[in-house]
């Protein structure tokens, strides 16, 4: 009786695991299928390098380099804000906070993670955008910087939670041993705990990066969506995600514009895939170093 249940459970779990992989593979296939038309007629390279995005004009132009640069700047600013702040907060919560402060802090961080990003977008629109405009003397606060700051805040809870978990799972023996040998709490945290938890922290940063690249609503509201090539985050920026969201509603299924948007989606997918591969390789090296 229990043997049959065992086998059934194993088969079911294997099937579910493969279904998850199948779904991911189908998404890939669907993306490539839909992007085929524009890759054939317009050319992938010309789209990646093109600087003009005028999909509804005659003749239509499908260059999305401005969107790529915009996504890059927003993600860059977001990570610049969220990684140092997030890891520092995690170190504090894990190593230095008293139990009461720790509980309180963790609850707030989890609550932040539950707030929909649109709400942060609204806060950004009415508070951050005018602030950026006056602090940096720009003509408009709708820039990659404003979007990046808010996206950073959106990624913060993810990075803090996962880094803190990684640090908490470092065995106490290491801490006690280090303190017994005469290090201060700060030296222990920075020289022993951080390196030991580094693979977990790295995973947290990768997750934050994925979140930042994929954030759509906030960048749509705050980044300005101008078709220029932004040479700094202080200029208005388009993003891959924002452009797809803005224009998907109005395209004719099967048309060239539709296909070009899917190519953008494919580029996003490829970026995330490459980042994950890279992250995996580094994690592998970390594991080998520490085991």
């Amino acid at each position, binding site marked *: 009786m229990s043997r049959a249940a065992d086998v059934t459970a194993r*088969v079911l779990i*294997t*099937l579910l695991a*493969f*279904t998850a*992989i*199948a*779904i991911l*593979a*189908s998404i890939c*296939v*669907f993306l490539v*299928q839909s992007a085929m038309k524009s890759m054939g007629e317009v050319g992938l390279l010309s789209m990646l390098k093109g600087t*003009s995005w*005028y*999909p*509804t*004009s*005659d003749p239509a132009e499908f260059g999305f380099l*401005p969107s790529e640069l915009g996504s890059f700047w927003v993600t860059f600013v977001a990570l610049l804000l969220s990684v140092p702040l997030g890891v520092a907060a995690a170190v504090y919560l894990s190593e230095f906070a008293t139990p009461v402060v720790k509980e309180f802090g963790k609850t707030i961080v989890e609550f932040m993670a539950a707030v929909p990003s649109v709400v942060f977008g609204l806060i950004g*629109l009415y508070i951050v*955008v*005018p602030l950026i*405009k006056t602090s940096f003397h720009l*003509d*408009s606060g*709708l820039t990659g910087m404003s979007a990046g700051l808010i996206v950073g805040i959106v990624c913060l809870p993810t990075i803090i939670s996962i880094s803190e978990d990684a640090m908490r799972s470092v065995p106490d023996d290491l801490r006690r041993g280090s303190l017994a040998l005469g290090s201060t709490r700060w030296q222990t945290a920075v020289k022993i705990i951080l390196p030991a938890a580094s693979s977990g922290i790295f995973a947290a940063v990768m997750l934050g990066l994925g979140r930042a690249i994929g954030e759509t609503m906030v960048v*749509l*509201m705050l980044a*300005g*969506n*101008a*078709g*220029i090539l932004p040479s700094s985050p202080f200029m*208005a920026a*388009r993003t891959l995600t924002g452009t797809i969201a*803005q*224009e998907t*509603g*109005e*395209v*004719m*299924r099967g*048309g060239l514009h539709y296909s070009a948007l899917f190519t953008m989606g494919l580029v996003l997918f490829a970026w995330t895939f490459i980042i994950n591969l890279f992250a995996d390789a580094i994690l592998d090296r970390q594991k080998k170093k520490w085991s």
Partner: protein
Amino acid sequence: MKVRNWIKMLGTVAATAALVFVLAGCGSAKGSGGATSQAESGTITIEGSDTMVNLAQAWAESYMGTNSGVAITVKGGGSGVGIASLVNGTVDYANASRAMKPEEITADKAAGHTPLETAVARDGIAVIVNSANSVKALSTDQLGKIYRGEIANWKDVGGKDAPIVLLGRDTSSGTYEFFNEAVVGKDAKYAKSMRNMQSSQAIVDEVKGNANAIGYVGMGYEEPAIAVLQVDGKAATVAAVKDGSYALSRDLYMYSNGAPTGAAKKYLDWILSAAGQKIVEQEGFVALAK
């Protein structure tokens, strides 16, 4: 033992591959969705122009108030979105602040429908600036140069020495397309520095807070906190739009697949009647000339 394991693994992989092809095939075989039935006991779905969305909601609320058996859903998204949904057969009416393009008409016909255009109101496009801006009037030629990026500083049109912050809608907007044809030039393109905002309200909000911004919105969005420029010497008033003397006047349309029937037809008739047109004026647009 080992052989059995191999068979199990191959079986699961084969099942997975089959699943992948079924899922991928599902996506492409679906094609255009089924058309909604227009006689569906009192449900009307309308989607499209962001310029018209407040007007469409006012119509819907007023009509549903006196006809409790009818449920009307109104969505924005832009004229392009509404027309695309009409072609895909998922809505009864598409609100549009521009005429359907030839390729959209072809796509609709290819999907087995014939689009029917009904003008339901008139609108003027108001060019707005911050109330602190000293410029009060511009010509269509100057506006064209500004929106093509050829003029980039307010001092070149009589204002102070400050860069012009260009605001516009995005490609799904009928207002974007109309402005492109009427001001920027049929074959010309908007300047790349123009910021694509999500909605007319987003443009109004940014103009309110930015002394150097310029934007274009439907007349219905005018507010006391922003100033409306005169275009070619004419102010954007109801009378000027009605007789067409304001340069940026246009018709607002509702498109349907073929002639509407049942509840949808009654609704359109009501919109064209005096009751519906009264709401047009209340919302800040211009009623159709009788």
